[in-house]
């Protein structure tokens, strides 16, 4: 568990935060909230309340303004997650292309259900809604990377590669 003292962006990320704040008019730095939460999640994997408090202090806003936003948007993890968060699309078009079977295979292979993390802390599986890649379904995403036209065999290869 992180504690408040250790929560501090590295200098290069802090510089990025200040560059982002400059994109908006004076006094509108709250607009940087979503971009900065993404930076925070990239740094600490998930948004603990300590992380959110830190983000609030960086943007001179109240902690509750961060909590209400982080809990509204599905991309922000409010619980600890594994090293690789696999977010698979469960919406119609991906299901038409055999998504359900592929995702069941994924969960069986990892031995976890949606929302769970493997015992070794490597993988978390989450189901998400449409990822705007419907013609290339079934699809899942791990961080910024899209994995498309998935088959059970491709899933095996991806998991093996990431397990190394």
């Amino acid at each position: 568990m992180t504690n408040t003292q250790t929560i501090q962006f590295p200098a290069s990320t802090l510089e990025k935060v200040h560059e982002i704040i400059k994109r908006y008019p004076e006094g509108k730095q709250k607009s940087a909230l979503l971009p900065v939460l993404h930076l925070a999640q990239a740094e600490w994997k998930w948004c603990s309340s300590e992380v959110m408090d830190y983000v609030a202090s960086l943007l001179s806003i109240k902690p509750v303004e961060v909590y209400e936003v982080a809990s509204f948007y599905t991309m922000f993890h409010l619980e600890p997650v594994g090293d690789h968060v696999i977010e698979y699309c469960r919406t119609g078009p991906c299901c038409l292309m055999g998504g359900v079977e592929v995702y069941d295979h994924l969960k069986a292979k990892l031995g976890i259900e949606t929302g769970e993390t493997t015992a070794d802390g490597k993988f978390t599986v989450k189901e998400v809604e449409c990822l705007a890649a419907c013609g290339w379904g079934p699809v899942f995403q791990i961080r910024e990377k899209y994995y498309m036209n998935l088959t059970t065999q491709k899933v095996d290869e991806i998991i093996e590669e990431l397990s190394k």
Partner: protein
Amino acid sequence: MKILTEHIDVQGIETIDVFRKNGGYAAVEKALKKMTPDEVTEEVKKSGLRGRGGAGFPMGMKWSFLAKPEGVPRYLVCNADESEPGTFKDHYLMMKSPHTLIEGMIVSSYALGANTSYIYIRGELMYVATILEKAIQEAKDKGLLGKNILGSGYDLELHVQLGGGAYICGEETALLESLEGKRGNPRNKPPFPAVKGLWQCPTVVNNVESIAATSWIVNNGGDEYAKIGIGRSTGTKLISVSGHVRKPGVYELPLGITVEDFIYADEWCGGIRDGHKLKAVVAGGSSVPILPAELILKTTNGENRLMSYESLSDGGFATGTMLGSGGFVVMDETTCIVHNTLTFGRFYHHESCGQCSPCREGTGWMDKVLHRIEHGKGRQEDIDLLVDVAKKIEGNTICPLGDAAAWPVAAAIRHFRDEFEWHINHPEKATAKGAVFMREGASWSL
């Protein structure tokens, strides 16, 4: 006829040099050096270009609503929050040819008198945001963005803003809330964003594809654009095709070709996958009414249905649908309509922002009832209950998400009521692995 994707497969088109060699940024030269902002707006009006995000509202008219009080900044915000199930055209365009959007942003921002503009892109498309940011830097280095662009005296800063995963932020006022660092709760209108938008300043929000089309309009004139297409459906449209066709993907087509050609011709989708038959199509993204094969191909007057705003909506919701965002989801006879409707119902339940009771509660109930029908626990009264809930959501919410949630459920029952009844009356059969309803005598039945 291709306007947006003519050079999309050219090697290196994502770099500014290759993009310029293929005619890129000519519209910026022309607009900033030879045209006034009002002249650009006039060409867009003449083009008849309609908002490509789904609403289909005339873009030039939307621009003309922008308030221009002295000393108050105005903003252009590009809606790249593409999240409507079935739609991935903006993703494709931005990922392959980022400068196509950036050129359109410069021309459009100039027309509106905006000196700072934002591209709000859904957070999941982080990798596309990186592609756009790289392209923006290239444009800056060439003097196409920043201060005094090409010596014209016009300044423009362009920024990419990441969303956080919320379909609702595709609704323009929710998008603006999100861009202000808040939850994506849609605003009451009026005031409209054209008067009070981003930070209470006059703002125009336009879809990626609409903005991208303005460069061609500047280069060739609004009248030329209006010659493409049919009637009030002018120009070309990007169609995202998913589901059971031979060639899913993104196609740019002149509005007005027949649906039948689009589905079956080798130039487009190439027909239904081998050995299967067309059962149904969702033509414009998950929120528009699903149509069975016979109604998507022909109107009730026996005319060929066309890929146009007017033809797709011919017959109203009783027998027609909408062009919407152009998310074209094709289903063959192996598709269980109840399951597909459940995935859409679950989607809207998940994505309702929770602000209006009819949507927050109604989407939850529709999800729950669809879930029990799909899982063999449906009750006789459930079908009418779904229709009733859909009716009570429709028109009773601040933003169109309520309608978008109600329509697909109502339409699925309208055209496939027997399939819902089969699930309720024969739960063992319906829940067996791979079981699908076959309607006696239907063109799609085996």
